């Protein structure tokens, strides 16, 4: 077939899925491909399936007319987003066989044939592989190969391979109306041009190509010149496929296997350097990093670190070290049974490097923030990742649950939304010391005070015992004032929570100048929750 080599830069393969809007509509509706389907736009049929065509449905028919010809016709309106969504599967299937395909429209792909032909042995073999791959993805297609991109598209519609240098000869036999058949190659007025040429007696593309360029340009305008160029098979642009996403993973096989933390830290540092070079080359920063390790016994360990800001190289190295430290120093039974042989870093989520760029002149306050952050990161390096906690206001009712602590570097996400209304929230001021010590609240007779299911005291409280703070105070735990109980109605619908009984809070003031305290009743016990001082 290919006795001549295609000239350099030429050779385009087009993959055409016929009636794609109808195929996509059938797939979206869950119909088999053999059902008659028509896609309409502005009451006219713009695409129909082969089954519909067999019973006389044609493009351009009115909807009612199409339904009259085929009563069981499934009619849907055109939706370019649906076409594109379903075509993504085909694109992925083609990318698996030959990368860097350009999608001209949903239903039509073009790609450069040279590499594929060399890889699969011949253009025919490459075309066969592509047809198989698309069929495996659940679509039907025709493949055409030619020197130039427009010719390849027409060859795909005919389902043939045009031999090298034979573009003009192949096109010359086509009807002039074919010039307007492919919407992705034709400008808006192409149908009028084809009509005009038809009426002038120029019935084939070959006759149009035989006209001189000057005559075409002076009589029919700019779009006609474009059409004339490809009618002659003159060089057009090649396919410009999308770039593959760059491979960002950094993998290291450890030899000898790593079983000590210091060796792991060393490995982590060089791996972080490698990852950051590839991130830098791709112009992105990493905000979610997966650290994976495989041990000699085949155990796989993985953890994803999520960060509020793009990770720097040092921060990545720190995280690798902390993670390996954690894995290697686990308790006996959880510890990996063999040393680590493979270590890999996989950026799960990346952002554009613009987010990493510091302003040239610095901005007020930002400088301070960075310096503060650096100091905190150093403390993290000394004490471990969980040592530095950043508080953030959270929703809730008690004083402790209204502050959420997250380790520095993690995204500060409150446990509950603080902007929601929280009925029953304790009013200001909040206790300045937060504790959680069991305590006894007694009535005048020395019996323990309970909170009933109606949210009342079983008896008026009179004194406190077993409180470290109360011992410090001058009195013997006698109360001079108390207020409450303020019941907390939380999660009563949850059987596990409601089994623990009522939760309530009470403020008490100790006799003899002792401190004011906040007590919390839960699980049928009193706890000293906070001290006002």
């Amino acid at each position, binding site marked *: 077939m290919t006795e001549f080599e295609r000239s350099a830069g030429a050779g385009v393969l087009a993959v055409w899925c016929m009636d794609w809007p109808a195929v996509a509509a059938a797939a979206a509706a869950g119909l088999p491909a053999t059902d008659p389907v028509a896609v309409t736009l502005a009451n006219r049929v713009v695409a129909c399936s082969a089954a519909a065509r067999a019973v006389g449905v044609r493009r351009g028919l009115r909807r009612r007319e199409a339904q009259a010809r085929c009563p069981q016709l499934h009619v849907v309106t055109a939706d370019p987003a649906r076409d594109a969504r379903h075509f993504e599967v085909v694109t992925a299937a083609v990318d698996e066989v030959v990368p860097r395909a350009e999608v001209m429209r949903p239903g039509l792909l073009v790609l450069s044939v040279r590499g594929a032909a060399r890889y699969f042995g011949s253009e025919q073999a490459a075309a066969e592989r592509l047809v198989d791959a698309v069929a495996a993805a659940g679509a039907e297609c025709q493949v055409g190969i030619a020197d130039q991109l427009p010719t390849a598209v027409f060859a795909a519609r005919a389902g043939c391979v045009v031999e090298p240098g034979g573009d003009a000869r192949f096109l010359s036999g086509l009807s002039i109306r074919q010039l307007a058949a492919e919407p992705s190659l034709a400008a808006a007025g192409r149908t009028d041009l084809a009509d005009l040429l038809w009426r002038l007696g120029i019935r084939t593309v070959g006759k149009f190509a035989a006209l001189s360029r000057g005559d075409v340009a002076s009589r029919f305008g700019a779009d006609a010149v474009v059409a004339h160029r490809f009618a002659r098979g003159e060089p057009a642009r090649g396919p410009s496929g999308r770039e593959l996403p760059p491979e960002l993973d950094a993998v290291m096989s450890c030899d000898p296997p790593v079983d000590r933390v210091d060796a792991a830290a060393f490995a982590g540092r060089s791996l972080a350097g490698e990852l950051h070079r590839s991130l830098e080359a791709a112009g992105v920063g990493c905000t979610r990093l997966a650290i994976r390790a495989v041990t000699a016994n085949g155990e796989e360990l993985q953890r994803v670190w999520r960060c509020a800001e793009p990770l720097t190289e040092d921060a990545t190295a720190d995280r690798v070290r902390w993670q390996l430290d954690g894995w290697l120093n686990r308790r006996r039974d959880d510890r990996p049974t063999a040393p680590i042989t493979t270590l890999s870093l996989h950026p799960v989520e990346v952002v554009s490097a613009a987010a990493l760029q510091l302003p040239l002149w610095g901005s*007020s306050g930002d400088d301070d923030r960075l310096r503060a952050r650096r*100091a905190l990161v150093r403390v993290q390096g000394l004490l471990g990742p969980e040592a530095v906690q950043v508080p953030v206001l959270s929703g809730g009712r008690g004083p402790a649950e209204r502050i959420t602590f997250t380790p520095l570097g993690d995204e500060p996400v409150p446990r509950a939304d603080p902007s929601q209304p929280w009925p029953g929230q304790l009013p200001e001021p909040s206790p300045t010391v937060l504790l959680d010590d069991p305590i006894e609240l007694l009535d005048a007779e020395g019996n323990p005070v309970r909170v009933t299911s109606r949210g009342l005291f079983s008896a008026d409280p009179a004194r406190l015992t077993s409180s470290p703070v109360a011992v410090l105070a001058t009195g013997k735990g006698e109360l001079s004032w108390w207020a409450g109980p303020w019941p907390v109605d939380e999660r009563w619908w949850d059987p596990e929570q409601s089994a623990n009984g009522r939760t309530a809070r009470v403020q008490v003031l100790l006799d003899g100048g002792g401190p004011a305290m906040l007590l919390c009743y839960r699980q049928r016990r009193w706890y000293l929750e906070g001290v006002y001082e």
Partner: protein
Amino acid sequence: MTAAMNLDRDRSNRAEQVEHLRRKIAGMSGKASGSGGSPWRGPSPSKAALPDSETLLPLPESLAGRLPGPLPRGSVAVLSGARSLVLQMVAAVTAAGGHAAIVGQPDVGLLAAVEMGADLSRLAVVPDPGIDPVEVAAVLMDGMDMVVLGLGARSIAPTRARAVTARARQKGCTLLVTGGDWPGASARLDARVCGYEVTGAGSGPPTPGCGRISRVRLDTTAGGRLARPVRAVGE
């Protein structure tokens, strides 16, 4: 001769002299003027007179009028007694745009600080600083405007304290020490609760079962080199 005259003139204005010496100390301790673009740090020798915001620590309003003198940045103060005093300081510093860290106080109620006006995004907490909290505080001085250090009744050797004090002065970071003593601290503040206000419990002594605590009254005593012994009663 001129020097003597200068000195005389300086003496006539004590505040100016203090300012002058403070600037000299800052210059000698190598605090570079270009260390930050913020108005927060770095006394700059090129400026004739420094605004107070660059050399003095913002104090809580309830304390500002009542303490005898302001706390300069880079000084060490020992706070004892009620926790509200620490939180008021934290609130004042973070609200004014500074960064603060609390080391070794796992039981601190930060919600109370928020109610006093603290900005939590400028606050970090190291609840468990390990065996050497002083070391952690010294590291944090690099970037913070104020570090609250809970000693947990540890005692600090005077030589160690001197080194850390010098570091605090050089970095312009105020160190507030609680839960222990600090040899050579320039100010000592002690706060005691002197009463609670209860709203909604009638006049006179509050009736049990009614009302709620609405205010904590503090009695602050200041001492130390920077502050003449004085008592102030605040919120």
